[in-house]
Structures are given as C-alpha cells and as structure tokens.
C-alpha cells in the first residue's frame, strides 16, 4: 500500500488525509458525522411535519388547507439559504423569548438542533406534497373499509393508510433524503461545522484545495450511492405482494 502510494506520488495527499493529527481526515469524518446527524434529524422532523401537513391538506378544514398551501408554496419558492437564515435567527430568538416570558432562563440550542429545525421545516413542505400524493394514490376503498369496521382514525392511519401508501411515497422520499444530505452543506454559510465547512477550513489551512474538496465530494457521493441502494431495497420490500408497475423505462 505504502509503495503504491509512493509510486503514484500520493504520499503527501495520504498524509493530509490521515485520520489522526497532523492529518485532517478525522476532521472530515467528524464533519460527515455532523452532516449525517443533521440530515437524519431534519429528514425525520420533515416526515412528521409532512405527515401532519398531508393529513391537514386532505382532511383539514378550509382555513388549515389554505395555511398549508401558503407554507408549501413559500418554502418551495424561496431559496433554502434565505429560509435557513430567517429560521435560524427567528427560530432561536422566538424560543428564547418564549422561554424568558414563561420565566425560564435561556434555552440551550445546539448547532445540530438548530440545523435540524431549519432544514426540517424546509423538508416538511416537500414531504407534505409527496405524502399527500401518495395517500391519494391509495385506493379509497381500503380506507373506507377500515372506517366501516369502526377503526379509530389514528389506527387507520397506522395500520392501513401508511403501509398502503409507502410504496407510492418511497421514490419521492428517497429523493428528499438525498436533498437533505446535500442541503446540510448550506449550513456551512451559517458556520456549522459540518462536512463542507470542515473541508473548507482544512483546505484553507493547508492550501490543498483539490485534495480536500475532491475527498469531501467522494464522501458525499458514497453517502448518495449507499442511500440510493438502500432505498431501492426498501422499495422492493414495500412493493411486496403488489402487481409490478414496471412498464419498460419511464
């Protein structure tokens, strides 16, 4: 391995990327861990918001429906970067003012929590639309049958609607997860130590721009490819027992 690296003139690159100091590989992996933490959290939070939003859009009253329409339209038209700044400053400010008004002291908001809140709100808008479409694709007879048997709404949701819509929602959700992993990079602009910012700092401290940007790109790509494979398997599992919908290429 060492000989190979030497032969290719990569020794210096490997030194820069080694996991223990003075290499910066550890920093990149820490950044990646933060990115994934935020992506997971935001995706989960977004799913919860999306499920609430989709139910609201489908079964809610007219006021709720219009409010949700405003939410999804605004989030999908305004750049994530702008939303992140607004939500980042407003969100923490509001939470602290509320806490102060209720007589508590300052609430500790970690960078990861703020990132999850900010990206989660953005993800929620897209998830709302994806899940709404998926619920509409479930044959209404199935849900009506559950109701006719006197199943309570929450149980209907858990036992009938969600399992039945999963196969319709998964392709959209897979895409959304990939967006979540890539959008964490935007948090670099607010100063979170996620992968992109760690990369930039390592690159500017060592002046090895290509080495670090390309390695970070490779890390993102690995995450993307692995998740795509995982979602494909998940989709296969969710489609079990359903007639194949494949009709050649799209």
């Amino acid at each position, binding site marked *: 391995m060492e000989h190979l690296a030497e032969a290719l003139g990569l020794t210096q690159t490997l030194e820069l990327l080694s996991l223990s*100091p*003075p*290499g*910066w590989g*550890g*920093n990149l992996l*820490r950044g990646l861990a933060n990115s994934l933490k935020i992506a997971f959290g935001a995706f989960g939070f977004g799913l919860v918001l999306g499920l609430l939003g989709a139910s609201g859009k489908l079964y809610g009253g007219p006021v709720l429906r219009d409010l949700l329409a405003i939410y999804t339209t605004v989030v999908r038209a305004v750049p994530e970067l702008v939303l992140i*700044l607004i939500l*980042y*400053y407003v969100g*923490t*400010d509001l939470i*602290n*003012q509320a806490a*102060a*008004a209720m*007589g*508590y*002291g*300052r609430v*500790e*908001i970690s960078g990861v929590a*703020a990132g999850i809140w900010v990206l989660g709100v953005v993800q929620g808008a897209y998830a709302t639309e994806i899940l709404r479409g998926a619920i509409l694709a479930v044959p209404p007879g199935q849900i009506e049958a559950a109701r006719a048997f006197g199943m309570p709404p929450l149980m209907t949701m858990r036992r009938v609607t969600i399992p039945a819509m999963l196969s319709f929602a998964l392709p959209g959700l897979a895409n959304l997860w990939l967006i979540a992993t890539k959008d964490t990079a935007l948090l670099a*602009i*607010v*100063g979170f*130590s996620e992968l992109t*910012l760690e990369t930039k*700092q*390592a690159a*500017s*401290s060592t*002046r090895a721009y290509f080495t670090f940007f390309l390695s970070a790109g490779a890390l993102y790509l690995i995450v993307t490819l692995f998740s795509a494979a995982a979602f494909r398997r998940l989709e296969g599992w969710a489609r079990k027992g359903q007639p194949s919908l494949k009709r050649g290429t799209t």
Partner: protein
Amino acid sequence: MKPTHLIAAGIAALALAAGAASAEPVKIGIAAEPYPPFASPDSAGNWVGWEIEIIEAVCAAAELDCEITPVAWDGIIPSLTGQQIDAIMASMSITEDRMQTIDFSDPYYNTPTVIVADKSSDITPTPEGLAGKILGIQASTIHQAYAQKYFEGATELRTYQTQDEANQDLVAGRIDATQADSIAMADFVASDSGACCEIKGAVADDPVILGKGVGAGVRKGDDALRESLNAGIAAILADGTHEAITAKYFTESIFNQ
C-alpha cells in the same frame, strides 16, 4: 417588539447572573474561519491561537465557565442578539456603529490597519494609490466600512466572507490588494503562501470607523457579563498573563494604551 426585547434581555441577564453559579457555560462566539495567528482550527479539531488563549485566560481570571462556539463571522452580531452566543471575542473592533447594537468590554488589543499587495505592484495605502485597482475586503469588518468610505468608486471593492478567502484570491491574482489588520497580515506575508506579497503600509487613521481597539462584544444591557469580562481583562493585563501569551506569538506588544 422593543419593550419585550428589553424584558427578554433583562431576564436573560438575570438568568445569566444566576446561571454563573449554577455553572451554565458562557458561550464565547468566535469566527468559524482560520484567522491566524489569532484563532484557527487545527487538524485535531481544536481551536488554537493567541485570541483563544486570551479567552481562556480571561475566563479563568473572571471565574467564568466558558465554551468556545464558532459562528459565521457575517452573522456573529445577529447570533449574539439572537442569544445563540453570549459574547463575541473574535478580533472585533469597538466602533460607534456596532455600539448602537451591542455593548463592548474594555479593549484587549489594538493594531493598525494595513494594505497588502503583490511585491511588484506600485500600490500605496491611499485612495490615489488604489485607484483603478481591485481591493478585497472581508464583509462586516471595519475594513469594509473604511474602504466603502475612502476607496469605493475609484477602486473596485470585492467582498469576502472570510479574510482567508481574500488572501487566497490575492495570491491567485484575482484581486490587486487587500486591507486588513496588521498582525494577521504580518503573519500572512511571512507564511509560504503569502510569499508573493508584502505590506504596503498603514491606511490613514479614522478613529470613528477603525475604532478604539478590539474588545469583547456582549448584548446591550448584559452588564453583569460585561463587568466580569472587564475584570478578567484587567486581571490578565495586571498579572502579566497577557504579556506572557503575547510573547508566545509576537515579538512586540500588541496592546498600546
């Protein structure tokens, strides 16, 4: 909006004063960018540099439990007012403009402002010497305010999020000069990557814009924290800690009253 702000700030200050005893850490905001020799990340994921050691010394002297929190420089004041951090110690100069929004502790260092350019160029640190050139500056700094007042128009200003990016583009030749703090620049031109360039001299002083030295920024009305930071700064200046830390990084004092 305003009264609730005041009440919130007041309660936060009270909570903080009470919190000092119950060991809630004071979050000291620094800029999330390499700014050697004051603060830069090392490969082990820690922040090191003169200012980091000063922060630790001040906190120890003031008996504060401090936690260093990196924030994007251009959002550092909103982060302070939005309560993500409690104090700013990021080489921030005490200026009239900023005093309208936040309060400052006493200064803990002060340095002149210089222009750096390629060794072969004939740039001088004056509006005439920079006419027709491209000057790189960091956003939200006294240098931006200064350049906008004295150089904008005849000189093309290019704004960067970090000083490091401006240095990088100076080396790449995308800008003709950059304006920044003399110590950070002395460190830069002495480094391998800054070998292309040299300090062309200090700009004419304008105390209103360039300020009265570097201090710790705190929220308006957060007098408890401001006073304990003042006490800490006074203590390390008096007992020689400040001098000892400075001697590790610089050949001469960077605190001139």
